[in-house]
């Protein structure tokens, strides 16, 4: 351990206070000193030992310089005989790793940065580290989502790869479940692997009580003012799910019966759901529904318009990406196991009904249905047609075939 007289500031805190390193947490020395936490890093980082010592401020700078020299001699003695050779070797090193400069100290320095980053990736998924990141998150150190409909939701730094040198750091927005490039170019030198792929999600699973939505303004964007076409339904369906409303709209829509008339108009839009929602679960797939991508769904999707008229989906340049920002109004639609169970029950019922029908007829009906749906499962369609052509030979065979097709169609339409 370095004595307090040597450096007023540790290497770690100096590193974290550098410009562009604002996202980093300060890894505790205890964490680094536990060898278990460093498993496997030795093979990933050149000059591992020196780098680790530098991070921990173990030795004074002079001593570490000497250490390097010795290390060099060990590594390539013949080159050491020739002073030119040394610089060549270093030039190679500089080429291999962008950060390298032509002095050993800077080689170690960049190794130390790499090592620190990789330790950091592990540290921020530990209890202590994630707590530290939570504090930074609360203070808004990582910035806000640039997306308009996320209303400034706070973001987290993440990597898109766990291997260093592939991607720079990105920002994960829990409100729209998407990743963004940091607005400031100084972060484009920070490796994404130093944060890792796991951290973003683990963070929000560790702190499920965090309100991940942004500061959505109390009154909805005054849509009625601008586009009179989008009056009642859009604003009121949104109002149904949100509590805080402007006085005007809440006085209009807060009573339950008032929302009923919008049912019919809302059904026009594909994603709109009946306003009186079925009872919402407290927890959908491990997340409370209000915290599941609050920036997505009805009212948070950009609707392209020209002179107030919506651009049609069938236009050549019409909207095609709404699915990306959509979310069911009814969280129960995401309860896949319940849906699957219901589908199984329905299928069992349907299979019973099939069995009662005459075999030949059932086969034909299924065939037409199949072609109507399109070539979702091209192979299946072909094979079946052939069988059907030679069909009618065995009633049992036809029946079994029909049931199989039934499931294929169902699966196809479910996916499509």
């Amino acid at each position, binding site marked *: 351990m370095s004595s307090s007289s040597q450096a007023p500031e540790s290497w770690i805190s100096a590193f974290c206070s550098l410009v562009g390193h604002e996202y980093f947490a300060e890894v505790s020395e205890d964490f680094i000193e536990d060898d278990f936490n460093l498993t496997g890093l030795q093979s990933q980082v050149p000059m591992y030992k020196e780098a680790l010592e530098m991070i921990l401020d173990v030795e004074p700078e002079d001593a570490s310089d000497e250490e390097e020299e010795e290390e060099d001699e060990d590594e390539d003695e013949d080159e050491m005989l020739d002073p030119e050779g040394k610089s060549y070797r270093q030039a190679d090193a500089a080429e291999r790793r962008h950060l390298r400069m032509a002095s050993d100290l800077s080689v170690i320095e960049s190794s130390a940065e790499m090592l620190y980053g990789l330790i950091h990736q592990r540290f921020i998924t530990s209890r202590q580290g994630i707590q530290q990141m939570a504090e930074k998150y609360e203070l808004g150190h990582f910035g806000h989502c640039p997306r308009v409909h996320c209303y400034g939701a706070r973001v987290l730094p993440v990597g898109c790869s766990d291997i260093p040198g592939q991607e720079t750091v990105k920002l994960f927005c829990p409100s729209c479940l998407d990743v963004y490039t940091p607005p400031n170019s100084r972060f484009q030198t920070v490796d994404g692997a130093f944060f890792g792929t796991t951290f973003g999600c683990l963070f929000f699973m560790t702190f499920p009580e965090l309100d991940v939505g942004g500061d959505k303004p109390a009154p909805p964007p005054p849509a009625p003012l601008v586009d009179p076409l989008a009056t009642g339904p859009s604003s009121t369906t949104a109002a149904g799910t949100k509590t805080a409303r402007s006085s005007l709209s809440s006085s209009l829509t807060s009573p339950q019966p008032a929302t009923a008339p919008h049912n019919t108009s809302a059904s026009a839009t594909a994603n709109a759901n009946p306003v009186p929602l079925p009872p919402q679960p407290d927890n959908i797939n491990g997340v409370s529904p209000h915290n599941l991508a609050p920036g997505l769904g009805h009212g948070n999707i950009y609707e392209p318009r020209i002179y107030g008229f919506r651009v049609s989906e*069938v236009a050549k*340049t019409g909207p095609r990406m709404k699915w990306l920002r959509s979310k069911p109004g009814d969280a129960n639609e995401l309860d896949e196991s319940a849906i699957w169970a219901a589908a199984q029950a329905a299928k069992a019922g349907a299979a019973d009904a099939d069995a009662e029908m005459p075999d030949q007829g059932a086969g034909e009906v299924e065939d037409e249905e199949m072609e109507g749906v399109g070539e979702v499962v091209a192979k299946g369609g072909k094979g079946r047609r052939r069988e059907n052509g030679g069909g009618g030979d065995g009633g049992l065979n036809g029946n079994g075939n029909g049931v199989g097709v039934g499931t294929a169609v169902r699966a196809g339409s479910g996916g*499509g």
Partner: protein
Amino acid sequence: MREPNGHTAPSIESLEAFTRTWTMEDFASDTDSDYTSYWRDWFIAARGNEYFCEIDEDYLTDRFNLTGLNTEVQYYQYALDLVTDVFDMEVDDDMREQIEKSARHLYGLVHARYVVTTRGLAKMMEKFKQGVFGKCPRVICESQHLLPMGQHDIPNVSNVKLYCARCEDIYNPKSSRHNSIDGAYFGTSFHNILFQVYPALAPVKTQRRYEPRIYGFRVHASAALMRWQEERREEMKERLKARGLETGFEDEDEGEEELESEELEEGNGQDGIDDMFEGRMQAVQ
């Protein structure tokens, strides 16, 4: 700017005059009508006004194009004179500031009308191509160029936003100097009209997306939502196909096999620890 006939002394003088009047405080004292479109040049070049294009003189002077703006803008006539560089009245500083403010407001409102004209669209298209309006912050959009837009056509309601044609979403400008521009100076229609007029500029959409993972495993809550969203997408594709339309997605040539390949992809998840994106980005391995 005028060339001063090769003499050095006058050129410096005029240059000084030019730079002096280039600052906002002095522009009104300059009544030299030789500097054509002087106010507009200044306005376009001012820091923070990069999103604006220059409005043609004849567009500005056609009263038809200004219909209704006189009620919207204070000191309308003075402001218009200032914008068209014919303002030559001695007024005190407060008044000048007021008029200057009105002039900028007027210019913005005319701008919203101008950018949907043929010439305005062409100018904005050039700026779009150069990436003057910035790039989409969304990682999957791969630096798609943005377009400025407003969420409202009424001034003083919301600031300018940036529209990405690849993800069809709107973003806040990252620079605070752009965050103070009124969205109504671009309007709600301009960016959509641009792609109607120049459909070739519309980027191909992508179905790739970010998948949150923990130690390589998809997270159920978000994965379930994404499966739901992808169902909506497939529904939309079916609707489009039923009408014989192109879906506009980049990997549509795979077409029919897509469903199968998606299922396959679910199966071999174990080698996907590092690819956070479906599809292309797997190449990094």
